[in-house]
């Protein structure tokens, strides 16, 4: 399978945060931005009850989606499915319209795991789970090395990704000696170095201080591929997402434009998204 050309970040931000571009102003998503389709997905962990029940939605290439829901709603499980990291759901097939997950038309099964993971970059909630290299540079190189790139290309990708997240000087830094915000950005660099067409982020703003949150938000604003963001941070949602999916108790409860959903106080209260 040939490597997909990647959706790239625009040049690094200036010192002041750039204004968030509207969907019309944002650079057009490249043809490489990834489409996602989830069809009637139902999933339960072994011996447990359903974590996801009959979830269906589709995401166009270049769309920016926020996935909202209370803790335990099934958001992380859904994101793992988008990276073919959970036991195969029933095979998806466009022709027969059966249930499952499709990434750029490919069923997200173990058989297609490699092409799926080249298209979709997943940022995990806890940076300790994702930052396993001894230095930042080594960790960021992990994905490009697995793509089978030569040493020069790996080096170029590491430098570019670290530059994208503002960690240019951190390549030789021990991963133990990073702040939480730096760890999160290093993790994001590791994902960006694989140049995915879609970024899937699980609670990227959790536990970040306002400056760390601002920096991460700026980086994500400049990403022009498909973006799917699970978060409780409604300010970040306003800033980054054009559309919101609300998941509660494993079911998709709402799907609509960001402004419409965020103005529906009753909906937000009902699903525990505002106090």
């Amino acid at each position, binding site marked *: 399978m040939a490597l997909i050309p990647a959706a790239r970040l625009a040049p690094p931000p200036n010192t002041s945060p750039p204004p968030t571009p509207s969907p019309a102003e944002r650079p057009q998503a490249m043809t490489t931005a990834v489409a996602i389709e989830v069809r009637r997905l139902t999933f339960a962990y072994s011996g447990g009850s359903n974590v996801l029940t009959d979830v269906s939605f589709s995401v166009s290439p270049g769309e920016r989606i926020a996935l909202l829901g209370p803790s335990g709603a099934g958001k992380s499980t859904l994101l793992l499915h988008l990276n073919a990291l959970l036991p195969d759901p029933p095979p998806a097939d466009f022709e027969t319209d059966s249930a499952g997950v499709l990434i750029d038309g490919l069923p997200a099964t173990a058989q297609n795991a490699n092409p799926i993971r080249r298209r979709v970059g997943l940022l995990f909630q806890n940076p300790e*789970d994702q930052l396993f290299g001894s230095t930042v540079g080594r960790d960021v190189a992990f994905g490009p090395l697995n793509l089978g790139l030569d040493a020069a290309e790996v080096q170029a990708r590491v430098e570019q990704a670290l530059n994208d997240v503002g960690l240019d000087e951190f390549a030789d830094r021990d991963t133990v000696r990073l702040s939480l915000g730096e760890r999160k950005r290093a993790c994001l660099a590791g994902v960006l170095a694989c140049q995915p067409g879609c970024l899937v982020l699980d609670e990227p703003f959790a536990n970040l201080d306002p400056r760390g949150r601002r920096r991460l938000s700026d980086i994500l604003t400049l990403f022009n591929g498909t973006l799917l963001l699970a978060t409780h941070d409604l300010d970040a949602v306003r800033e980054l997402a054009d559309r919101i999916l609300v998941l509660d108790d494993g079911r998709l409860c709402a799907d609509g434009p960001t402004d419409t959903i965020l103005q529906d106080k009753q909906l937000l209260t009902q699903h525990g998204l505002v106090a």
Partner: protein
Amino acid sequence: MADPISSPPRVLSAAAFLKLAASLGIVLLGCSLSWDSWPAAGALLAVTFAALAFAGFTLKALARRLALFLPVITLVAISIPLSQGFTASWMQLAGTVIIRGAVSFLAGLWLIRVLPFDSLLSTLYALRLPAVVVASLAMMHRYLFVLWEETSRLRIARKARCLGRQNRIAQWMAGIGMVGMLVIRSLDRGHRIHRAMLARGWDGHIRPWP
């Protein structure tokens, strides 16, 4: 197995190699000594202490580490006569084990002090240690710190809820529970790390990066 296309060259740093060789030399020399050759052992210990002092190790820091190490090696030394019987030379045998252990421990401390772990890994890789071993060592080092942080958090959380003095047995019981909790959390974390590796295209092959 490393991918031949993406494996970086194995470049050996002379300084790092000398430090590693010196440390291994001290260990080998220490292990060749017995109780009878105590003057040579004393000289070797003196050299090692001097090297540690030059490396910036304070006496207090050294004493703290030895206080952790010596009881363990003493127990190991005593376990031999306990299992094989107290012969006439049991003290010499136990003394030899303690000397060898102490020299090796001090040489290891010195190596850690003068050679950052990252450089040690690069040196081992340059010396053609299999990539999978180097990667395993790197991950072990990385997650020892994570585990230590987790242990500290659990201890603080336990202290915060200990509103009176606990007797020794209660402390041990709580400690055992904490160890159990750490094992479960570590297994869970291992599962999540495996997923994170898969998410970045890991296919079971280790491809190191210098």
